[in-house]
């Protein structure tokens, strides 16, 4: 049994489990699934700086911070107890493309050759970690949600603005991955 758990899980197991987070949070306490809001609550708690957008009682939303702390712990548990060490399987076409940028290490889910403290001082590393992270934080809040809040929660509740947001996430992602990211990776 544990061996099965240690294998990578297929989409038809993982997807429904993630979808079940929606009713779980609603039934546990009438909470709508969403993760990017946690970033806003952290701002409100740590650096409100008199900005009206952060002047609210973040403690009322502390469940969201417990939730993301759980995600962090879940990542820790899965990586240390439930994984078989080894290379992750990736489409050969992607492997060939990434090899041209010198990315050859598939031992981690995060490409450690790109995301590490040493490369932070290079232009490429700075763009991948600092600029990338900034765009995630700025964009999700501007859009009012991320993949969880819009694509999963919003679409589950048949909200058309969430469909607009989800389509824009995908357009942005396709453009970046196919047009701009290759330039960044060859820096």
């Amino acid at each position, binding site marked *: 049994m544990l061996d099965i*758990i240690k294998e*990578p*899980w297929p*989409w038809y197991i993982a997807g*429904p489990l993630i*979808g079940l987070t*929606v009713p779980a949070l609603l*039934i546990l306490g009438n*909470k*709508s699934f969403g993760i990017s809001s946690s*970033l806003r609550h952290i*701002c409100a708690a740590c*650096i409100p700086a008199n900005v009206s957008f952060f*002047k609210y009682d973040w403690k009322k*939303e*502390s*469940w969201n911070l417990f*939730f*993301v*702390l*759980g*995600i962090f712990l879940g990542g820790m548990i*899965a*990586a240390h107890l439930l*994984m078989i060490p080894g290379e992750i399987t990736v*489409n050969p*076409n*992607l492997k060939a493309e990434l090899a041209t940028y010198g990315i050859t290490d598939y031992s981690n889910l*995060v490409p*450690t050759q790109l*995301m590490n*403290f040493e490369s932070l001082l290079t232009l490429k590393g700075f763009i*991948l*970690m600092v600029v*990338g*992270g*900034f*765009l*995630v934080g*700025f*964009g*999700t*809040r*501007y*859009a*009012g949600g991320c993949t969880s809040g*819009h694509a999963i929660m*919003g679409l*589950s*509740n048949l*909200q058309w*603005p*969430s469909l*607009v947001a989800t389509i*824009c996430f995908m*357009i*942005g*992602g396709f453009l*970046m*991955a196919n047009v701009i990211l290759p330039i960044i990776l060859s820096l």
Partner: protein
Amino acid sequence: MLSIMKKETDIRHQDTICTNESHLQHKWYHNLKYLIVGVLFGIVFVKAEIISWFRIQEMFRLQSFHMYGVIGSAIVTGMISVWIIKKFNIKTIYGEKISIAPKTFNKGQIYGGLIFGFGWAITGACPGPLFAQIGTGAAAVVITLVSAIFGTWVYGYFRNNLPH
């Protein structure tokens, strides 16, 4: 007093999909149940390689069905769940009525959506996976997370000057 409270609630609800008002007062440890849901959720994230930068690159290059399968089946499961909750008027474990705030459209969903899409493809992570990635030991992702928090702050600071 009431108007101050209303204003406070309005600010808290701005541009956010996950605020719901509860009139029940709970001790802090009631939040531990969300921590447990988060743990299970984080395990699925890692085990299904949703937090993998490589999986996100495959998705945006149409080289794998995996991520589409995950997100698609999650949405279908969520839709059926929400439909059942509404249809049978299911209450929370505290007996409260379940309500989901509707999303109102503004141009932020387009501009912000595109910007987030750029960031998603660069970092290979949306906000949830950032927390899970750090959990797996990818310490450098802390920088990405701090930068994401800063991005959120900058949005809040310039919010009134941005087209919505």
